[in-house]
């Protein structure tokens, strides 16, 4: 893989495009994220798809362990799916352009969210949605940006992170949404899923950036 030229941030990045048009190259992570998007739409389009794949505590305990992962692809309707996947696609695109490696945050975030719901939200018999993973991608993006920016820009990102943490802590503690949403009344808020996703994303970015600084992860691998 070719080393990209350094940017004004002292990192390799999209300025490589300025040197001229590059041939279209689809990386494995881009393909994986696109596959997630397509799979989620298909699950929603399949009438029994969401019920067949959702996080169902009893069925997981009975051996259907794949629901720990597939639950993220299941949603409570098209508006739910559209919002989750719209945010997912947007954050992934930006994160990929600003350093790459977001697939790790998606993978680890998904695991962390499922583990948190299973272990710390025993009242939740069932769980659906990609928003926990969205939180992971968000955390990943913020920590990555903070590590590369300084001064006011870093402070702005940290402020956004603090606001998100505050919201999720509130929702975890009270079981109520802090901001307006639009799902049926019988759906409960599991704030711990967002917190777990956020933590996983931040941790992934921190470890990855630290490893990059130590030279164990090549910069080119992080270039978009």
């Amino acid at each position: 893989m070719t080393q990209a030229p350094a940017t004004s941030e002292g990192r390799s990045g999209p300025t490589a495009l300025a040197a001229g048009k590059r041939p279209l190259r689809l990386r494995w992570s881009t393909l994986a994220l696109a596959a997630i998007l397509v799979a989620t739409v298909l699950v929603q389009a399949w009438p029994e798809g969401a019920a067949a794949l959702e996080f169902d505590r009893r069925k997981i305990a009975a051996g259907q362990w794949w629901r720990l992962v597939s639950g993220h692809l299941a949603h409570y309707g098209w508006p739910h799916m559209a919002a989750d996947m719209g945010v997912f696609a947007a954050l992934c695109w930006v994160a990929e352009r600003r350093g790459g490696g977001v697939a790790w945050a998606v993978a680890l975030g998904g695991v962390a969210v499922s583990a948190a719901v299973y272990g710390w939200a025993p009242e939740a018999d069932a769980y659906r949605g990609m928003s926990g993973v969205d939180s992971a991608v968000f955390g990943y993006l913020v920590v990555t940006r903070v590590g590369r920016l300084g001064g006011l820009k870093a402070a702005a990102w940290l402020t956004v992170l603090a606001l998100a943490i505050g919201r999720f802590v509130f929702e975890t503690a009270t079981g109520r949404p802090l901001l307006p949403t639009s799902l049926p009344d019988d759906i409960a808020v599991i704030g711990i899923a967002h917190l777990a996703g956020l933590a996983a994303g931040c941790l992934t970015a921190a470890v990855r950036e630290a490893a990059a600084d130590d030279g164990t992860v090549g910069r080119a691998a992080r270039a978009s």
Partner: protein
Amino acid sequence: MNASTSLTRSSRYLGAAALVAVLVWSGSTVRGAGLLIADGGLGGVLEIQEHHVHVTLNNGVAVTEVTQVFRNTENRPVEALYTFPVPKGASVADFSMWINGQEMVGEVVEKARARQVYESYKPRRKDPGLLEQKDYKTFEMRIFPIGPGAEQKVRLRYYQELEVDDDIATYVYPLSTTTTGARAATAGRLSLTVHARSPVPIASMESPSHREAFVIVGHDDTYFQASLESRRGDLGRDFVLAYRLTRPRTGLDVIASKPSNEDGYLCATLTAGEELAAKRSGMDYAFILDVSGSMAEENKIGLSRRGIAAFTETLGADDRFEVIAFNVVPQALFSGLREVTAGRQAEAARFLAAQTAKGGTELRSALAAAYRLAEPDRTLNVVFLSDGLAEQGDRQALLAMIRQRPAGSRVFCIGVGNDVNRALLEQMAEDSGGLASFISLSDDLQRQAEAFRRKLVHPAASELTLNFEGGGVYDVEPATLPNLYHGTPLRIYARYRGAGPTTITVRGNVNGKDVAWTAKADLPAKDDANPEIERMWAWHRVQRLLKEADRAGSRESVVAEVVRLGEAYSIATEHTSFIVLENDGEYKRWAIERRSALRLQRDRQAREVLARQLETIRDKAVARRGAERAAPTLSDLPPPEAPATASPQTNTGPPRASSDSPRWNWPKLGGGPVGPVGVAFAAVLVVAELLRRRKVHR
């Protein structure tokens, strides 16, 4: 980049991640801390190891026995403080602790003295326990000390009248509360067993809150049993169980209890039948929705909105209605009563959906706005959906306004959830000749709304009077009989001096016509089968005294009598508490009589007789069905399929949870459940990235 810079950067990243991880951990701790906390020190971690609830529904009375095991997970002794909501109409009659492996029964003493005794033991690290009613909505249980890693078993029992409406009886075990701001779950087993006995055959039983988690068995048509068991059970939601009878139990029934050494007690239950069957129409309704800040808790406002919407859908074409939302000021939808049309119903729904909970509670101005709608020739039903969490000063003025209400107007109060000022809402309804109803957040709101609506459209029997011939009956509770509503039983408690025949007559007025109900009863010289009605009589007397005192503005004159009744009948009230001491010697040292212990013995004998009767019915059912199809009891139930909680359900489908899917009934804003803010933020990031890209290209 040199090594030290790299280390600093790495530390910064890892530090930020660690901070988030700590917050995640603390978030989960908040949830786990729940209603049980270690008090009086620098915190501490306690667990509810086990939580078992055993309920018997018989003679219209629910007896709930709760056994819990607390465990201290710390390496130091801690004081356990367990807070739980006051169940509706509950008379807590027993509080016991296991000390040195032996059950020690608590005794009721005056509240301040109980606290003094409890505090005196704390420095000596003896084993006191205290159960007190903190306020109108909260009980507090304190236990000290629970040693490092030790477990403490406690038991409490309370009596309450079973909620009956027409042919449906509802039992609620309240757990949902915002008292401590967090939920609790058991570390080990949670179980709930309900035995329902009815003289009228039971047609069906179900749990609106935990439909699939309960195993429900009809042993015969007068005895149903429901059982639930799970590990790591959620203690943050109410358990609701409802059963339907094959027909309403109507007429006048009498049961009695007669200890050998004192006067007897009787309970007469009157339920109207055909007398109130006719329907009324052409009435006016003012629906008043409380949108003060306290209504945001537990989604009270969301459920209240749905309640009003459900009501408006049932109105007839010749009814008129108005909707008023209020916090510190009332806001009316139509500025007057309007005939019911589909368009107006939709308009009301939109108006309600636009309301958000904020600000204080000014009940009086809302009621005044409703009373301005009254017209002389029409009945005005003012339906309040509120938690009643208003200032005390407002309360007195409010009750004065109700006393001077326009002719033909009644106030009906509906409280949603457990954090509700029942006393105030009941008083508002009683003083206006209306009714108060309290609905669990986990119950079927539609069913409850329909039941309440039935009371509004059927006439009520008013100006009720009561007469006893024979038996030397005295101290009747309630002293003044309230209106009798369709489907709602009126329970009358009294003392009697002489055994023998008595004739009870209740007279009233329905739509201008006189009606009367009569029953003959043979009051027994001795009867130990129904000791619960003794406590119910005393509890009603205490409640009446307190309500009268609150109307007058001071409780000073009644506190002594309330304390006397509490101590004599072993009832925890706002002025009496249970105290548990280590042994009989300690009770003697404080000159505390063992009255509760004696009463408990008598209660247990009566419960054992009933338990044997129920066991006989179960045995017969087993013989009838054959061993393979035997009705399961709790001990027969298979272990839970997974370490899952008993989950709440609605009538519309299986339980669902999502990190981004609220219980809130917010207006539909068009955003996904991530929320419009999240979507907007992502959009801004994308636009910024595109702009940056264009800039770079240039």
